[in-house]
């Protein structure tokens, strides 16, 4: 499997999947360019775990506080996940 990479020099090429999250040199200009990441199998497991916790929290909030609580929990959870993803 390969990952499409676009260099700052606008050259489009593919990099091997094992370079996901790392760097490779652009075949056109030779400069280092980042390869899109987050493909580690363990990362997928963590993503799935976060989704399960989020769904359970929303369901719990719905049973305790009704629709308003569920919506607030869903929005809060989404905001938290977005903020954590910004850290990476």
């Amino acid at each position, binding site marked *: 499997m390969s990952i499409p990479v676009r260099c700052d020099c606008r050259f489009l090429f593919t990099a091997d999947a*094992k370079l996901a*999250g*790392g760097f490779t040199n652009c075949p056109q200009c*030779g400069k280092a360019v980042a390869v899109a990441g987050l493909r*580690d199998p363990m990362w997928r497991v963590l993503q799935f775990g976060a989704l399960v916790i989020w769904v359970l929290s929303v369901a719990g909030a719905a049973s305790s506080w009704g629709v308003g609580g569920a919506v607030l929990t869903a929005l809060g959870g989404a905001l938290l996940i977005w903020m954590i993803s910004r850290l990476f």
Partner: protein
Amino acid sequence: MTTNPFQLDGYMIRRKVFKLFGSSFHVYDPAGQVIGFSKQKAFKLKEDIRLYTDESAGTELLTVQARQIVDFSAAYDILDAQAGTKAGGAKRKGFKSILRDAWELMDANDAPIATVQEDSGGLAFLRRFLSNLIPQSFDVKDSSGVLQATFKQRFNPFIYKLEISIAPGATLDRRLVFGAAVLIAAIEGRQG
């Protein structure tokens, strides 16, 4: 005038062991002059080691970055910050490292070109199961088994010191040797 660490045949990495948050280390030439400085932020999920010429962090020399956040393959890319190119990479050999620390160095195309391994299996065993105060030593060998460099930890329970000696006639890219030494000082040193 600043010395280019990639041209030296020997240098030393000195790292404080007891630091509450994050870590930092200095690189010294044989005359004791600082030729490199690195400060790592605490609580950073993805390993990102940046080496500068001095504490002002004005000129970046080398970047060593993990490929993944949750990195079980433990692969790192070594970038030449001056040239803006990838010099190569380093990968920790997971199973081999259980008993004896072992790393693989790769070229810019990710092809294995050298290994970094603890020199003594017996001492590595003692270090793991009896006392981590026993200093570590590593041999860097190319794919033909020719010695390219040695990393020797000096015994000091308070300060982590790693001496790097480039073998005469070594042909391995010195940026990779430097990157591997920085990784070992940052990662293996943290475990010690």
